[in-house]
């Protein structure tokens, strides 16, 4: 609470300083010409006043408690030293909670433990009080010091604007850095956990193994059996679903884009585009629901019906097979994923087709070409690399799509090219492995990170290729 107050105070002080600085600069403006507008001087002083102090406060807020914990834990009381690590952790937590006046865990501490607890809590309380005071005092000193240092330097020749802009630039850069840090975070966290996984399952077995039976590894006594974590069936399933999806999405999406950009009038376009955008905005879980409860039963009914019609005829085996088709199959997931990808492909392609300059169309029409000739011979060839890039991006998305396959694909890991089979995919397995109880030292849980890392790698390669293509193509008309 005191920190919130401190921040508020600091803010108020900075605003005041800003106003003072501005006024001072305005007063100076009477004599000489100022280097910058008065507002910049105000901001400059306010920044010197506010930023260091705010940084200190933030530092204490984030690192302070940890430092405190480390400090009081530095000399563990005898009562704690003997405790198992989990209970010890609980002890320290309780000490902190007690210090903060929060409810403690339900663990019944022995009296001497209780005493040690009280003592440590007191220590923590003292530390907390001191550190808060120190932080606040330091912040106050910094704010005042910054102000006092900056204030006399206000002069017409001070390049206040340039300095303020320097600060802004640093802030902007920091924001961009977050994007890079995200990537580093992804890679680091995936690698870290995956390394732990690969410590128990050799990477080659994982990458090229043909068997996927993670449940075997659940039994602690059985060290992960060879072949139990072979990811090939998962990738085969992913691939099969993706192929089905692209068979639906690529032609429909592309032709949608062509129709919208070349044939549709303004009003038609104005109606259809937002509708397609709705299709694009439908959450994947809804597609999953649609797949599981509508498309699946529909397909199953359809194939069962065909099967019953064929059964006992010359194609009896096929009929029998079809009659046994289940809701969960690659086809269901693939088709619904295809629907999901239609707007994605069509809007990417639409962009790319629209980027083909109107002058090329005019040129072609003026030669006496019909619309379709213009599309086929001028626009598509010009846009082809871009369209290819769009398709690759769509594939990457299909590979990483989770909810539809989770809800509609099935869980049998098998290598098949038959879309009527139930297959499982990488993402579905990740969900399966990581929902429910997670034990972060069992290979079953860690396998998800192995899969995640591979998935990340695959999509990364796809994306890099696709984006290269798209970008190269975009530059062609710049």
């Amino acid at each position, binding site marked *: 609470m005191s920190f919130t107050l401190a921040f508020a105070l600091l803010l108020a002080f900075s605003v005041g300083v800003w106003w003072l600085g501005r006024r001072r600069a305005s007063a100076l403006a009477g004599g000489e010409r100022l280097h910058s507008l008065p507002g910049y001087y105000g901001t400059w002083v306010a920044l010197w006043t506010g930023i260091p102090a705010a940084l200190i406060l933030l530092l204490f807020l984030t690192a302070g408690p940890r430092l405190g914990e480390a400090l009081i834990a530095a000399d563990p009381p005898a009562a704690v030293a003997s405790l198992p690590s989990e209970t010890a952790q609980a002890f320290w937590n309780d000490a902190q909670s007690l210090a903060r006046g929060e409810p403690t865990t339900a663990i019944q501490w022995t009296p001497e433990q209780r005493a040690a607890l009280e003592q440590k809590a007191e220590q923590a309380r003292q530390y907390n009080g001191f550190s808060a005071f120190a932080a606040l005092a330091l912040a106050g000193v910094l704010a005042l010091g910054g102000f006092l240092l900056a204030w006399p330097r206000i002069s017409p020749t001070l390049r206040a604007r340039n300095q303020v802009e320097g600060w802004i630039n640093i802030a902007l850069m920091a924001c961009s850095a977050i994007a890079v840090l995200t990537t580093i975070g992804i890679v680091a966290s995936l690698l870290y956990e995956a390394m732990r996984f690969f410590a128990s399952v050799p990477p080659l077995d994982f990458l090229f193994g043909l068997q996927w039976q993670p449940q075997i590894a659940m039994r602690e006594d059985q060290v992960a059996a060879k072949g139990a974590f072979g990811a090939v069936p998962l990738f085969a399933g992913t691939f099969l679903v993706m192929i089905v999806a692209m068979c639906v999405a690529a032609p429909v999406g592309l032709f949608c884009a062509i129709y919208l950009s070349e044939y549709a009038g303004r009003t038609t376009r104005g109606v259809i585009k937002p509708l397609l955008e709705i299709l694009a905005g439908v959450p994947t879980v809804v597609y999953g*629901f649609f797949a599981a409860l*509508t498309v699946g039963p529909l397909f199953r009914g359809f194939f069962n019906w065909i099967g019953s019609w064929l059964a006992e005829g010359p194609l009896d085996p096929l009929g029998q097979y079809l009659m046994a088709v289940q809701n969960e199959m690659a086809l269901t997931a693939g088709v619904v994923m295809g629907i999901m990808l239609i707007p994605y492909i069509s809007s990417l392609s639409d962009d790319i087709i629209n980027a083909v300059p109107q002058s090329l169309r005019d040129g072609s029409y003026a030669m006496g070409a019909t619309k379709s000739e213009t599309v086929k011979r001028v626009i598509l060839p010009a846009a082809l690399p871009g369209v290819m890039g769009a398709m690759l991006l769509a594939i990457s*998305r299909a590979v990483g799509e989770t909810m539809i396959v989770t809800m509609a694909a099935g869980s049998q890991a098998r290598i098949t090219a038959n879309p009527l089979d139930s297959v499982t995919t990488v993402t579905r397995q990740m969900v399966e492995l990581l929902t429910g109880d997670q034990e972060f030292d069992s290979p079953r849980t860690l396998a998800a990170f192995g899969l*995640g890392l591979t998935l990340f790698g695959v999509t*990364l390669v796809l994306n890099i290729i696709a984006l290269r293509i798209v970008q190269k193509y975009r530059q062609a008309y710049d």
Partner: protein
Amino acid sequence: MTDARNLPSRDLSEKRLKQRHAAEARFKLYGQLAIVIALGFLVVLLARVVQQGYTVFWTHSITTSVYLDPARIDRADLEGNNFDYLAAQNLLKRLKVQDDALGLASGEAMDLVSRDLGYRILGAIKDDPKVIGTTLTFTVPVKANADLYYKGEIERSTPETDRKLSNRQLDWLDRLEAEGLVRSHFNSDFFTNSDSTEPEQAGVLGAVVGSALMLLVAAFIAVPVGVLAAVWLEEFAPRGRLSGFIEVNINNLAAVPSIVYGLLGLVLFINWLGFPRSAPLTGGLVLALMSLPTIIIATRAALKAVPPSIREAALGMGASRTQTVFHHVLPQAAPGVMTGIILSLAHALGETAPLLMIGMVAFTPGLPESLASAASVLPVQVFIWENAAEAAFHERTAGAIIVLLVFMILMNATAVILRRRFEKRW
């Protein structure tokens, strides 16, 4: 160029012309077909969701009076009483059905009325213990299966073994309805309740609030960071290997499967930094990281669309780079930026997979108390209900989807309107 060539070539070109026009017509047809297919899917999808979900918006309540027999109520341990059983017996009495020795009939009757009734009775007694011995009248929802029967989704024609309700129960329901004790009305509980194990009491409020909190967190972080990062990359970053790397990096991040962000959240936030599981804070952080690249890309596109002439004009006037950007470029790009932000947040709103990774599948009745407490969110609620065994949850799944879609369509529509209104041709 003799005249002799004219005639044949003219015939040829007329034949060719016919072919060309036919090809043209065909090509156009393909386009129309594609549109029809795409929109057809949309219509089927929406129709199916509505068809499965619209029934959730009304429900049936039963009005029943319960004699609070002092003999049957243990005042010492109020919570230990089985008020549901008491109420069921009252109901049977009302139906003039004799309970059997095993109390099977009462048991079956209990399955017709929401468990809420028991809590209501308990509440009434706690409020005022003097009510014991009187007869109170309560209006409570019927049990989900009974509701389905009233809505016609459970039919008497199905063999008794294949349905959830026995013939006897159906008879009772019919009689209750005939006596006017059952009333159908708008299902406000669906919007004011949170998740529950009892389908008839499960609602979306908790999920809606959870989603809203999470979206707030995500927006609060991703929007300023994303926009400012985009501004730096587009306007300030020295063009070189570093900015090229960042650009590639961001484009890749935008295409990284969302489930990978879930893994990131799981490892980084929960395992390493000790953030709470299932909390809107953690989910919001994950979604923020996930929408960051899309926001950056959309913002950059909007910034790129501002013609360089504006920048040149401002720079040529002696405006500094920062002034140029914040006075001219960013205001110009604002509608595009807003559109990008709304669309990416709408997308985040519907995101499920990464949230599964950070444990948001947990069952969470009630409203989240803070950003750090466990909460449910709409899409995950959909996923949970879809997995639930009871048929009654399917209706609720579709209902929740409708709520989700309404939010999403509203956000999309805002984006479209924004774009339309501010679309500028240079």
